[in-house]
């Protein structure tokens, strides 16, 4: 259409500018109802070592203690966290999921330099799970910091950056980039990464390699350090003891179980989802028995019973991973269900549910 000529009738006033129309794309996922859980002042108190205020508004109206202390000032408001992967860097789902209702958000695995990831196919369905090999696709730590860290600062949920590397030197350099950033509450070392010095064997199958990696990172990182173990070690208790004595503040387990699907992903493929839950329960049980540091459990959590199982074997926090792909609202819903379950059982603290299967 031809632009209409503007006729000035009075005075030197400029015509009002049309504000551009913003077209909003409707999300397929309904945003969960937002409710305030923790505030910035809460986080300041957390940093000072005080427990956070308990999330408001449980169904029964009673307040229960859900705080989890992972060490060095990192206190989670609730034991339910988002495991590394399904929520990316959090910003991808922030519109659809009320992240403030989670104890923590663990980011996608991040490497020092950008990685393009594995060739397709990257995923294949398996019985009660998926076999996947993403090949650590990520834009590199510097791009992640530049793009997302300012956003994380304003969030009520602590963000834990999951870091991956092929050598202790790479891990140390990567973690040093995260040093001093207010938006990063902790780092989680993915010990399931292939160790280039040992021909690609994961760090987590070798107590010495795992311990020296944790010790090296410990020297540069003075906030909460979580070591994530993958299964496959001859004795996972030895690995757990090694990383704990090397300075890990907490241990998380498990990463994916090495797997394969014919016609599906190959190099570096792992099985995830409910299929690995019994394996993960065993590993968490063994690790809790071997070390005194808090243990965060991952592995096929899809319902409240799974959360209660992990707490019963001694985990203090539980992460939701693969199941959140199909249902992004699951982690926050489980957080609410756990709170309700603690109230319904008449406990004052969720810690009364921790370790009950060990007695």
């Amino acid at each position: 259409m031809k632009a209409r000529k503007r006729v000035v009738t009075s005075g030197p006033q400029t015509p009002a500018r049309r504000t551009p129309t913003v077209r909003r794309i409707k999300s397929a996922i309904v945003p969960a109802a937002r409710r305030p859980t923790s505030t910035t002042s809460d986080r300041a108190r957390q940093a000072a070592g005080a427990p956070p205020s308990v999330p408001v508004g449980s169904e029964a109206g009673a307040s229960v203690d859900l705080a989890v202390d992972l060490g060095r000032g990192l206190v989670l408001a609730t034991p339910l966290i988002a495991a590394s992967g399904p929520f990316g860097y959090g910003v991808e789902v922030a519109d659809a999921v009320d992240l403030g209702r989670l104890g923590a958000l663990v980011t996608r695995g991040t490497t020092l330099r950008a990685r393009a990831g594995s060739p397709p196919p990257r995923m294949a369905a398996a019985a009660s799970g998926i076999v996947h090999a993403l090949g650590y696709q990520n834009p590199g730590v510097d791009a992640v910091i530049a793009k997302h860290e300012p956003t994380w600062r304003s969030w009520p949920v602590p963000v834990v950056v999951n870091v991956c590397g092929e050598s202790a030197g790479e891990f140390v350099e990567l973690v040093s980039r995260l040093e001093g950033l207010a938006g990063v509450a902790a780092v989680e070392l993915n010990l399931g990464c292939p160790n280039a010095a040992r021909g690609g064997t994961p760090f987590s199958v070798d107590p010495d390699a795992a311990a020296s990696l944790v010790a090296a990172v410990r020297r540069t990182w003075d906030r909460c350090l979580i070591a994530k173990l993958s299964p496959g070690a001859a004795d996972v208790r030895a690995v757990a003891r090694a990383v704990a004595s090397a300075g890990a503040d907490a241990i998380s387990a498990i990463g994916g179980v090495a797997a394969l699907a014919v016609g599906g992903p190959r190099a570096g493929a792992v099985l995830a989802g409910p299929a690995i839950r019994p394996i993960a329960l065993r590993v968490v049980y063994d690790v809790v028995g071997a070390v005194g540091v808090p243990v965060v459990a991952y592995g096929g959590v899809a319902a409240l019973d799974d959360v209660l199982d992990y707490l019963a074997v001694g985990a203090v926090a539980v992460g939701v991973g693969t199941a959140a792909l199909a249902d992004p609202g699951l982690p926050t819903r489980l957080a609410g269900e756990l709170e309700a379950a603690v109230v319904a059982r008449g406990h004052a603290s969720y810690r009364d549910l921790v370790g009950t299967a060990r007695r």
Partner: protein
Amino acid sequence: MTTLLAEAELVESRAILPGQWIGSFHAPHVASGARAGQFVHLRDPDSTTELLRRSVPLNTVDPSTGIVTLHARSGAIGRLRVGDRVGLVGPFGRPFEVDPRSRHLLLIAAGLGIAALRMLADEAVRDGRQVTLLFGATAARDVYPSSLLPDEVEYLVATADGSLGHHGPVTDLVPAYEAWADQAFAGGPMPLLAELARHAAGRRERMGVAHLGRKRGGGRPEPPGSATARRKSFLQVALDQPVGCAAATCLGCAVLGAGGVPLRTCREGPVFAAPELDWAALS
């Protein structure tokens, strides 16, 4: 209960080919505004072993009745009964881009690749374009029934064993239509798409198509991946990758783009212009 918006009821179901199935769902939320090439994410709520939702391209869509048909491998969803309700969300992804000036569309499919192209044939016929579909299968028993296509579509078949139509791969049929077609759209296994992409890359030179730039030094090149760039490229392909989250988060559906940039099937795809992808890495 899930926080997902949508459930849909299966209103009709039939096996059309060995191991292949077409289901009609009442899903007005999907039918409104859906375009050819997009996909939906489907999950049987009773299934305990199928963890993730499954991506299925839209086969046909009728916005007036809200009926959406899906053409898929008859696995767990093939066992659904009429009246069953499933989680059905979408549409996701970017559609095929048809240039308004294109008169002749060439559709090339093999096996289940037709599932993504079927709706494009509907749209093109409705818009008064001429459509030729080249279909490849291993044998006559796997050939897509012509009764399921609009009458206006010219339909040619190639089978690997020669039991119906041309004896050989479907790519043998392409050269005869290459000059006729204004745009081509393909769906099927990755090796087929890679061969078509290789073939399409040299088309301009083979056909002697002059590159007509705009007056005064030609227009500025369209950014790759834009709708306009896709419209201008001869071949668009629909990829059939398993999609994990359909929210562009999990990266499980990513494929390598030209220049080593990963592209997500669920967000940048599932339709891509052939030059956008790194075919050497994909095949």
